[in-house]
C-alpha cells in the first residue's frame, strides 16, 4: 500500500496559543484511520490545516507526492481531499440533489450539469437518501443531514475522506448504520480518517489509531496497542476503560 | 426680509403647475402659427431650486405683461405666447429628457435653458439635434459655447470680460494691491470664474499667491483658509455656491484673514448670501452681469426701461431683482424680437434672426457673437454696504464709493 497523505511536523498557533504542534504521520491508500482525542485536543484544527482552511504556522502537508501545504480549501477539494463538517454545512435552500450535484460538479469529475446530476443520484442511492432527492436540504433531520454531507463529499470523488464527528448527535442504532456506510465507502478504496472523541466507535472500525492530546500526537498504532499505551490511558482513556476494553477484545 | 422670501417661495410653488398656459388663450383652435410656444426645463426642486424658481417667477411676470397687452405683433398679426415648463429636479439626465419632451411632445418653437452651465450643455445638445433655437440666460462659461452649436444663444457675457474689468478697477481703487488668493469650487461656472480671474490678475501684474479649487461636497474650508492667511493676500477671490461662500467668509473671519478686499462670486448677487452672513457680508464685493441700478431706456419688449422693469418686479414680489431675473426676462424679449423679425415661428428663420440680433433691452444691449454668446461689455461690480447692495462700477451707474473690508 502506497502512501497517500503525509504530515511533517505540522504546527499551528492562534495568537500565542499552540493549537497543533509538531504533528507528523502518514496515511496509506485504502486505510481507515481513527483520529481521537478529548474535546479541544486540536482534531478539527488539524483537519482544517490539512484542507487549507487555516494556513500552517510551520510544517508541511504532502498529498499524493505533491506538496500541498499552501493550498486553498477548494484546491484540496479538487485534489481529492474531501471532508465533512462537525456542524453540517448544506446549501439550505437547494434541494438534496442539488447539494450533492454541487460536490460532483465542482469537486469531482463531471464537467456538465447533466453528468453532475447523474453522479449525485448515484451517491444519494449509495447513502440511502434517494427518496428525499427533491426536498430542500434545510428540511432534513440531523441523521439525514449527515448522510447528505457524506453524499456530497463522495460526489467529489475523494481519495481521502476526513469525517469530522460524523456520528455526533446520533443514537446507537444510527451510529451502527453510519459505521456500516463508512465500511462500504472504504470498500470503494477511499482512504478514511474518522475524527471522534468517542473511543468505542473508532476502535471497532479503525485499522490504525492516532491520538491527539493538547495539540500533540501522543500515540499511534493498532487499536489494541494504543489502548494499552500508558500515556493514552493517563491522558485520555482512564484506567477503567482500558481494562474493560482489554477484556472485551480478549473475549472476542 | 426672510418672511417675504417665504411668501415668494409659496407663490412660486403655487404657480408651478405643469404648464403655464397664457390666460385668455381661448382660441386654442387657432392655427399653431398664431401661438409662440416657449419650452423651459427648470430646476424647481433639488439643489438648484432657488434659481429655477427665479426663472419661473420672472417669466410669469413677463408673460402676464405680454398677455395684458393682448399678445405680440408678428407680421401684422397678433400672436399669443405660451410657456411650457417642467421640473427636472436638478438632475442632468432629466433635463435632457424634458427638453426632448418639450420639443417632440409639446412642440415648442424655442427652448429656454435652465440655470447653470452644466445643465445648459445637456439641453443644448438636444436642441442642436432637433435644430430648435435655445436661449441660455444663466450660462456664462465659454466652454458651453465653443462646441460650434448653431442654435445656442446666451444673454450673459463671457466671464473674462468680468474678471479683467474687476482687476483693473481694484488696482485703480487700491494702488498698493499686489497679492491675490484665488479659491474656487470645482464646478463648471465657479471654476471658470476662478481660472479667468487668476489669468486676468497675472496679466495685470498681480501676484497670485494661492490658486486652488475645492471639490463639490467640501464641508469645511479651514485648511484652505489657513493657507490663504499664511500667504497674506491683499485680495481674496472665492467662487462657489451660496452655502460655500457663507462658510468661506465666516471661516476667513474666524481664522483671522484680514485682506482688505474680499470678492465672492456670485455671493452678494443673492439675498440668501447677505441673510446667511449678517454683518460678515459687509464689504464683500462681487461682479454680476446686471444690476437694477443700470438705466437703459428706449428698450424693446414689454418694459421699455430698466426702471419700468424694476418697478413691476418690486411690486409683484416685494424684493429686488437680481441678474437671473434680468437676464431671463431679457432673453424672452430678444426671442420675441427675433420672431417678429423672422415674421414666423419657423425655427430656421428664428435662428437666423437671433444670429442677426442687435438690440437694446431693459437689461442692456444684446448682440450675439460668432459663438452665440452676448458680446462683452462693462459689467457691474457690486459691494455690500450697510446691508445693501451698492454698485461701484461702471461709473455711469455707480451708487457708492468702494470701501475696504476692515
Amino acid at each position: 500500500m502506497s502512501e497517500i497523505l503525509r504530515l511533517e511536523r505540522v504546527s499551528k498557533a492562534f495568537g500565542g496559543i499552540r493549537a497543533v504542534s509538531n504533528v507528523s504521520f502518514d496515511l496509506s491508500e485504502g486505510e481507515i484511520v481513527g483520529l481521537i482525542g478529548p474535546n479541544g485536543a486540536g482534531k478539527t484544527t488539524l483537519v482544517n490545516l490539512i484542507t487549507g482552511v487555516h494556513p500552517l504556522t510551520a510544517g508541511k502537508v504532502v498529498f499524493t507526492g505533491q506538496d500541498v501545504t499552501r493550498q486553498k480549501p477548494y484546491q484540496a477539494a479538487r485534489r481529492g481531499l474531501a471532508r465533512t463538517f462537525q456542524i453540517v454545512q448544506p446549501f439550505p435552500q437547494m434541494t438534496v440533489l442539488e447539494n450533492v450535484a454541487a460536490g460532483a460538479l465542482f469537486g469531482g469529475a463531471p464537467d456538465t450539469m447533466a453528468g453532475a446530476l447523474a453522479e449525485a443520484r448515484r451517491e444519494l442511492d449509495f447513502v440511502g437518501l434517494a427518496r428525499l432527492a427533491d426536498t430542500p436540504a434545510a428540511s432534513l433531520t440531523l441523521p439525514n443531514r449527515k448522510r447528505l454531507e457524506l453524499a456530497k463529499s463522495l460526489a467529489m470523488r475523494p481519495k481521502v475522506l476526513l469525517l469530522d464527528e460524523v456520528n455526533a448527535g446520533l443514537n446507537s442504532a444510527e451510529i451502527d448504520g453510519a459505521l456500516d456506510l463508512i465500511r462500504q465507502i472504504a470498500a470503494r478504496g477511499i482512504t478514511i480518517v474518522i475524527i471522534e472523541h468517542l473511543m468505542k466507535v473508532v476502535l471497532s472500525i479503525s485499522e490504525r489509531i492516532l491520538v491527539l492530546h493538547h495539540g500533540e500526537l501522543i500515540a499511534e498504532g493498532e487499536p489494541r496497542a494504543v489502548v494499552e499505551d500508558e500515556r493514552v490511558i493517563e491522558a485520555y482513556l482512564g484506567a477503567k476503560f482500558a481494562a474493560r476494553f482489554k477484556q472485551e477484545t480478549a473475549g472476542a | 426680509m426672510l418672511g417675504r422670501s417665504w411668501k415668494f417661495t409659496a407663490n412660486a410653488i403655487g404657480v408651478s403647475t405643469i404648464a403655464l398656459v397664457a390666460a385668455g388663450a381661448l382660441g386654442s383652435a387657432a392655427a399653431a402659427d398664431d401661438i409662440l410656444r416657449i419650452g423651459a426645463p427648470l430646476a424647481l426642486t433639488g439643489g438648484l431650486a432657488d434659481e429655477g424658481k427665479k426663472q419661473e417667477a420672472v417669466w410669469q411676470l413677463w408673460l402676464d405683461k405680454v398677455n395684458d397687452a393682448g399678445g405680440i405683433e408678428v407680421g401684422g398679426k397678433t400672436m399669443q405666447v405660451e410657456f411650457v415648463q417642467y421640473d427636472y429636479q436638478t438632475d442632468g439626465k432629466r433635463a435632457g429628457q424634458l427638453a426632448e419632451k418639450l420639443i417632440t411632445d409639446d412642440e415648442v418653437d424655442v427652448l429656454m435653458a435652465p440655470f447653470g452651465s452644466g445643465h445648459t450643455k445637456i439641453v443644448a445638445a438636444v436642441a442642436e439635434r432637433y435644430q430648435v433655437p435655445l436661449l441660455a440666460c444663466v450660462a456664462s462659461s465659454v466652454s458651453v459655447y465653443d462646441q460650434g452649436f448653431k442654435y445656442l444663444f446666451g444673454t450673459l457675457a463671457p466671464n473674462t470680460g468680468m474678471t479683467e474689468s474687476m482687476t483693473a478697477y481694484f488696482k485703480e481703487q487700491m494702488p498698493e494691491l499686489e497679492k491675490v488668493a484665488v479659491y474656487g469650487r470645482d464646478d463648471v461656472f465657479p471654476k471658470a470664474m476662478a481660472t479667468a480671474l487668476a489669468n486676468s490678475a497675472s496679466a495685470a501684474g498681480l501676484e497670485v499667491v494661492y490658486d486652488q479649487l475645492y471639490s463639490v461636497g467640501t464641508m469645511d474650508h479651514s485648511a484652505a483658509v489657513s493657507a490663504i492667511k499664511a500667504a497674506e493676500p491683499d485680495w481674496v477671490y472665492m467662487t462657489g455656491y451660496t452655502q460655500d461662500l457663507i462658510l468661506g467668509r465666516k471661516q476667513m473671519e474666524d481664522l483671522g484673514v484680514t485682506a482688505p478686499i474680499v470678492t465672492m462670486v456670485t455671493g452678494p448677487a443673492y439675498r440668501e448670501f447677505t441673510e446667511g452672513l449678517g454683518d460678515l457680508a459687509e464689504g464683500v464685493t462681487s461682479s454680476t452681469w446686471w444690476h437694477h441700478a443700470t438705466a437703459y431706456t428706449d428698450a424693446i419688449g414689454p418694459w421699455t426701461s430698466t426702471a419700468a422693469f424694476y418697478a413691476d418686479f418690486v411690486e409683484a414680489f416685494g424684493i429686488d431683482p437680481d441678474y437671473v431675473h434680468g437676464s431671463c426676462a431679457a432673453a424672452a424679449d430678444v426671442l420675441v424680437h427675433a420672431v417678429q423679425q423672422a415674421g414666423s415661428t419657423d425655427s430656421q428663420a428664428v435662428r437666423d434672426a437671433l444670429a442677426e440680433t442687435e438690440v437694446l433691452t431693459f437689461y442692456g444691449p444684446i448682440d450675439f457673437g460668432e459663438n452665440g454668446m452676448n458680446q462683452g461689455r462693462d459689467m457691474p461690480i457690486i459691494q455690500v454696504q450697510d446691508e445693501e447692495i451698492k454698485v461701484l462700477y461702471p461709473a455711469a451707474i455707480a451708487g457708492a464709493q468702494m470701501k475696504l473690508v476692515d
Partner: protein
Amino acid sequence: MDILQIFVNGIVLGALYACIAVGFSLVWGVLNVINMLHGSFIILGGYLTFFAWFYLGLNPILVLPAVALLLYILGFALQYLFINKVVTAPVLTTLTLTFGLDMILYNLMTVYFTATPRRVTLDLGSIDLAGIVMPVDRLLGMGLALLLTALLYLVMRGSTIGRAIVAVRMDRQAAALMGIRVNRIYAVTFGIGALMAGAAGAVFAMVFPVTTNLTGVFLGKAFVICVIGGLGSVPGALVGGLALGVIESFAGFYLGPQHAITVGFLLMLILLVVRPTGLVGVKGYE
C-alpha cells in the same frame, strides 16, 4: 506654527465630525442597519434650530434639547413602525428601506424648507492663543459634541436602558430570554441615533450653513468616520471623527483642498480591507 494651527483646525472639525457619526455608529452597531436617513436627520435638526432661532428668537443651545427630543420621537416611530419589521433581513433590504424613507423625508424638507442655505448668525468671534486661532462657535460646538458623545457613552455604560442595548447587541436571543423587549430596545436605539443626529444638526446650524443639498455629504462623512474609527462604539466614533478632521485638514493644506475629501474616502477603503475593525479595533458596542 502653521502645523499647529492646521492640527487645531483638524481637531475642532474632528469633534464636530464625531458628533455626526456617533448616532450612525450606534444604529449600525446595535441594529446592524446602515441608516441612510442619518444625513437628513442632521439637516432636519439644523433647520428646526434655525427656525426656532429666527422666528422665535430662541438661543440655539436652549433649543437643542427640544430638537433632539423631537428627533428621538421621529426616530423611535420610524423604527417601531417600519424598520423593526425587517430588522433581521439582509443589509440590502434594510439599506434600501432606509434609503426609501430618506427620499420621503428629503422631499418633505425640500418642499417645506427649500434648499436655501440657512445659518444661525450668532457670530461669537474667535480666541487667539499664542497665534493659534480658534473660532468660539466651533469651540462651543466641539464642547457640545464632546459632551453629547460623553453623555451617550455614560448612558450606554451606566443606565438600565444602556445595558439593555448592549445586551441586545451582544446576543439578541439571549437578551429576549432575559425578558428584554428587543423591538422596543431597537426603537429606543434608533431614537437615540436620531437624537444624536438632531443634536448634531443643532450644533451645526451655528457653524455651517444648513441646506438639504448637504444630506448626502453628512451621510458620507458618517460612513468614513465609522469605518476609520471602528463600528459600533462611542470611542470609535470619536477617534474616527478626530482622525478624519485632522487628516482632511492636513491633506487640504498640503495636497490642496481638492484632494482633502478624496484622501478621507481612500483611507476608508483601505482600512475597510486591511483592518475592518477600524483604528480603535473594538468589535461590539461598549
